[in-house]
C-alpha cells in the first residue's frame, strides 16, 4: 500500500514536470514566436500604443454612430463571462427582448408603413386601457410581479421612491400587512405590486420615471416623476401594446439584435443585423460630419461588405461582421463622433 502511495506521488511528480512545465512551455514558445498576435489575446492598439481591446472580445458601443454588438448578460465584462440563463419559458426573456424592440419597432404595412410604432404606444398608454380594462400599470404589475419587483430593486432611486411612498401611504401598507401576515415588515420590493396599483390609480396613464431637470441652484437634479412619454413607456409597455394589437404587421428585427450570446462577449453580429443598423449609423455620421446621407450610407455599406465573413466561407453559417473591426474602420474614416 505504502509502495503504491510512493509510486502514485512519483507519477504525479513526473506528470507535473511534463504537463505543467514542459508542455505549456513548448506551446508558449511556439505561440510567442510564431503567433505572437493571437497568443497575447488578439489585442489591437491605437497609434499611441494604448490597448483598445481584443478583436475577439465584444466591447460595448452606446453611440448611434457605431454599430452595436449583441446584448450582453455580462455587461461586456471580460473578467466575468456569462449568459442570461433564461429558459424560453421564462417571462424575463420575452420582457428583455420586447424592451429592446419597443423603441425601434416599425410598421410593415398600412398607412404608416415604415413609421415608428413608439408614438402609438405612448398614445395607447395615455388612454390607460388594456384588454378593455382600465389602468395599464396596475395590470402590468399584477401580471408580472417579479418584473415589478425588479424595477424597485434595480435602482437605488426607485427603492427610495417606494420607501417614501410607503411612509406617505401607511393605510395601504397596513392593509397589505393584514393580507400578508407572514411579512410583518415589508421591504420596498414586497410592496412593488401594491405600489404600482396605487400609483396607477393616482396617476392614470403615467409611469414613475427618472426625470432630470435643472434645479434652483442651476445644477441638474434627477427625481422620479409620473411620465406618459419617453423610453420607459416605449420599452416596458411594448409587449402589452402588442397583446392589444396582435394582428398589426410589424417589421421583424434580426434575432441577434435582441438575443444575448452565450458568453456575453460575442464579437460578431450577422450582416443582416448590421444592415438593419445601417440607416441609423449612416444618418448619424452624416449629421455629425455634415455629409450627404446617401454617400455615407454607400461608403459604410461598402465597408460592411468588405468586412463580412462567414464561417468556413458560408458552408456552415451566415455572413457575419466583427463589430470592433467595422467600428475601427468607421473611426479611422470619420474620426471621433460628435
Amino acid at each position, binding site marked *: 500500500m505504502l509502495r*503504491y*502511495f510512493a*509510486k*502514485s*506521488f512519483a*507519477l*504525479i511528480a513526473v*506528470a507535473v514536470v*511534463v504537463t505543467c512545465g514542459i508542455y*505549456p512551455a*513548448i*506551446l*508558449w514558445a*511556439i505561440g510567442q514566436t*510564431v503567433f505572437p498576435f*493571437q497568443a497575447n*489575446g488578439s489585442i489591437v492598439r491605437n497609434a499611441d500604443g494604448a*490597448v*483598445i*481591446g*481584443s478583436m475577439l*472580445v465584444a*466591447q460595448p*458601443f452606446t453611440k448611434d454612430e*457605431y454599430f452595436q454588438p*449583441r446584448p450582453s448578460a455580462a455587461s461586456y*465584462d*471580460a*473578467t*466575468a*463571462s456569462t*449568459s442570461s440563463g*433564461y*429558459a*424560453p*419559458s*421564462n*417571462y424575463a*426573456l*420575452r420582457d428583455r*427582448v420586447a424592451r429592446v*424592440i419597443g423603441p425601434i419597432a416599425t410598421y410593415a404595412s398600412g398607412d404608416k408603413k415604415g413609421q415608428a410604432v413608439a408614438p402609438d404606444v405612448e398614445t395607447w398608454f395615455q388612454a390607460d386601457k388594456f384588454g378593455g380594462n382600465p389602468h395599464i400599470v396596475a395590470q402590468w404589475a399584477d*401580471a*408580472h410581479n*417579479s418584473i415589478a419587483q425588479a424595477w424597485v430593486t434595480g435602482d437605488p432611486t426607485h427603492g427610495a421612491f417606494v420607501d417614501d411612498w410607503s411612509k406617505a401611504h401607511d393605510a395601504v401598507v397596513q392593509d397589505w400587512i393584514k393580507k400578508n401576515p407572514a411579512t410583518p415588515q415589508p421591504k420596498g420590493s414586497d410592496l412593488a405590486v401594491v405600489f404600482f396599483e396605487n400609483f396607477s390609480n393616482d396617476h392614470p396613464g403615467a409611469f414613475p420615471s427618472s426625470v432630470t431637470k435643472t434645479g434652483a441652484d442651476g445644477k441638474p437634479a434627477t427625481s422620479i416623476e409620473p411620465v406618459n412619454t419617453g423610453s420607459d413607456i416605449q420599452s416596458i409597455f411594448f409587449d402589452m401594446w402588442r397583446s392589444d394589437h396582435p394582428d398589426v404587421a*410589424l417589421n421583424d*428585427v434580426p*434575432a441577434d439584435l435582441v438575443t*444575448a*450570446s*452565450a*458568453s456575453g*462577449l460575442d*464579437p460578431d453580429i450577422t450582416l*443582416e443585423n448590421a444592415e438593419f443598423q445601417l440607416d441609423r449609423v449612416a444618418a448619424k455620421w452624416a449629421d455629425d460630419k455634415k455629409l450627404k446621407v446617401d454617400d455615407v450610407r454607400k461608403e459604410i455599406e461598402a465597408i460592411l461588405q468588405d468586412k463580412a465573413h462567414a*464561417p468556413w466561407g458560408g458552408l*456552415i*453559417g451566415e455572413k*457575419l461582421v466583427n463589430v470592433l473591426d467595422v467600428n475601427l474602420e468607421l473611426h479611422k474614416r470619420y474620426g471621433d*463622433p460628435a
Partner: protein
Amino acid sequence: MWLLPAMLILAAIACSIPLSAYFTWLMEGRYRAPRVLKWFEDLVDTGPQDWKQYTIALIVFNIALFIFGFVVLSLQPYAPLNPRGLGWLEPTTIFNTVISFLTNTNLQHYAGETALSNFSQIFFILPNMFLSASVGFCALAAIIRLFRGAEKCGNFFVDMWRVCMYIYVPVALLFGIIFMQQGMPMTYASTEVATTLEQGSMGLDDKGQAKPQTIVVGPVAAVIPIKMLGTNGGGFYGMNSAHPLENPTATTNFFTTLAMMLFPFALVLMYGRMLGRIRHSVVIYGVMLAMMIGLIAWVIRTDTMEPNPGLTAHAATAWQVPSASAPSGKLDVPSPAVAALPVNQHLGNLEGKELRFGTSAGAAFAAITTDVTCGAINAEMDSLNPLSGLSPMIGMWLNCVFGGKGVGMINLLLFLIVGVFLAGQMVGRTPEYLGRKVGAREMKLAMIALLVHPILILGPAGLFAATGWGTTAEANPGAHGFSEIVYQFSSSSANNGSAMDGLGVTYGLNANASPSPEAVPWDIATGLVMLFARYLPIIAPIAMAFSLGRKKVAPVTLGTMSDDTVTFGFLLFGTIAIVGALLFLPVAALGPIAEHLGPIPFGG
C-alpha cells in the same frame, strides 16, 4: 445545417480507426520506448498486478491525486502567477472542485476567469485533466485483459504513464498549435486592460473616469486541448467553449468538437482489436453511433430549426389542475393568448448561442458533449428550446453513447451483460458473453454498477426539488427550474460537468460578499455524487470482468448467440432504450416535456 455534424462524425470515424490501432499497439506493450522514457516506465512500475492489486493501485492513486489537488488549490493566495491577488476559493467549493477534476467531471461551481489564477490553471487544472482522463482508459484496458482470461491485468502505473505521456501529451501539443494559430491566447500574463474605442462605454467609475474593459488572458491554449481530448470539459473561462478566447473561430470549434469525440470513438474499436473480435466492437460502435446521430438530429431539429418559443405567438388555452380548495376538486387556470414579437428567427433559437461557429454548431455541440461526457459547452444549456434540452439529458442518463474514455465503453458492457442475460432468459439458455457463462455473481456486479447512476441522480434531485436547497437555487420558473436541478445531478453522476448555468450554485472566492445562498449544500451534494458515481462503476465492472474471465470458454454451437450481427445490435439498443426509458421517463415528463406543453411564457 447538417453539413457540420456530418463532417464531425465522418472525421471522428476516420480518425478512430488508426488511433485505435495505435492504442492497441501501445496497451499491448509492443511499443519499445527510448531509454529515457523507459527509465521513467521502470521508475513507476511495480510489476504485474492481479485485478485486486490493480484496483487498489487505482484507488490509492486517486487518493494521492485528491491530496495533491487539495493542497495545490489551497495554495492559490500564496502562489506566483497571480497578479490579480486572487484569494482562496470557499472551502466547500475547493472540496467540490478537487473531486470534480479528480473524477474527470469538471463540474465548475466557480467561474474560471474570476476565481482561478494562472498558477491554479496550470498546476491544478492541467495535471488533473491529463491524469484523470487516463484513469478510465486504464480501467478499460484492465477489463479487456481480464476478459481474455489473464490472471494478471497489467500494471496500473505503467498503463497510466503510457496513456498520459505517449497519447495525451503529443496529441494535445498538436491541437494546441492549431488552436493558437486560430487565436487562442498562450501567455503567462493574466490580464490586458483596454480603454475601449468609445471611451466611457463601459460606464464611469466612482471618480467619474471612464472604466476600462479588463480582458482576462492566460495559458488558454495549453488547457483547452486536453480539456477536450480527455473529455474533461472544465473551461478556462466561465462560459467555457462559448467564450471567444476559448473558442475563437468556426475552425477551433470544429477541432474542439472533434477532439472530444476522438478517444471515446477509438476506444470502442480498441476493445474489439484487443479481444480479437473486431466485428463485435463494430456492432457496438454502430449502436452508439446510431444513438448519437439520433440525439444530434433531435436537438438540431428542435433548436436550430425552430424559433425560440418565448418570442412567438401562442393561442389562449385553459389548464385544469387538481386543487384541494376548489369545490369540484379541479381549478381552471386560464392562459391568455400571447402575441408574436417581431423577431426574424430564421436562424433558430439564438438566445445563448454564439454566431461564429456556424448555425447548427451550438445544438450539435450540446448533444455531443453530453454523449461523450465531456461537459464543455459552446451555448447556454438553459436557453435551449424546451424539447431540445431532452437530448443532452438523455445523453447523460444513458451515459454510454460512446461515453467518457473507457468508462463509456464500460457502461455499455453493463447494458450488454443485462441484454445477454435477458436474451438468454427468453430462449431458456444459460446466457453467455465472449463464450463464458454469465452467472449470478456477474449479474449482481453489473446491476450494482448500473443502478448507482439512476439512484445518484433521482435521489438527490428529488431531495433538492422538495427543499429550499433546490427551489431557492432555481433561476427559471416552473418545469424548467426542475429541469435545472435534474440536469445538475445528471451531469454530476454521469461525470459530465456541463450545467444549466442559471442554477445558483456558485460561491466562488471565499471573500465573495454575495454568493448564491444555497451554494454550500450544492457543493457538498454534487461532490459526493461525483465521487460515488465515478468509482463504483469502475470497480464493480473490473471485479465482474475478473469473475467472468476465470470461467472456461464454452465451445461455439448452433445455439450460441452470435454477438457480431445486426440482430445483436438491436438487442443491445433495445436493452439500453428500455432500461433508460423505465428509469428516466418520469423526470423527463416533469421537466422538459412539461415545459414544452405548458404555458409559454410561464409566470412573470
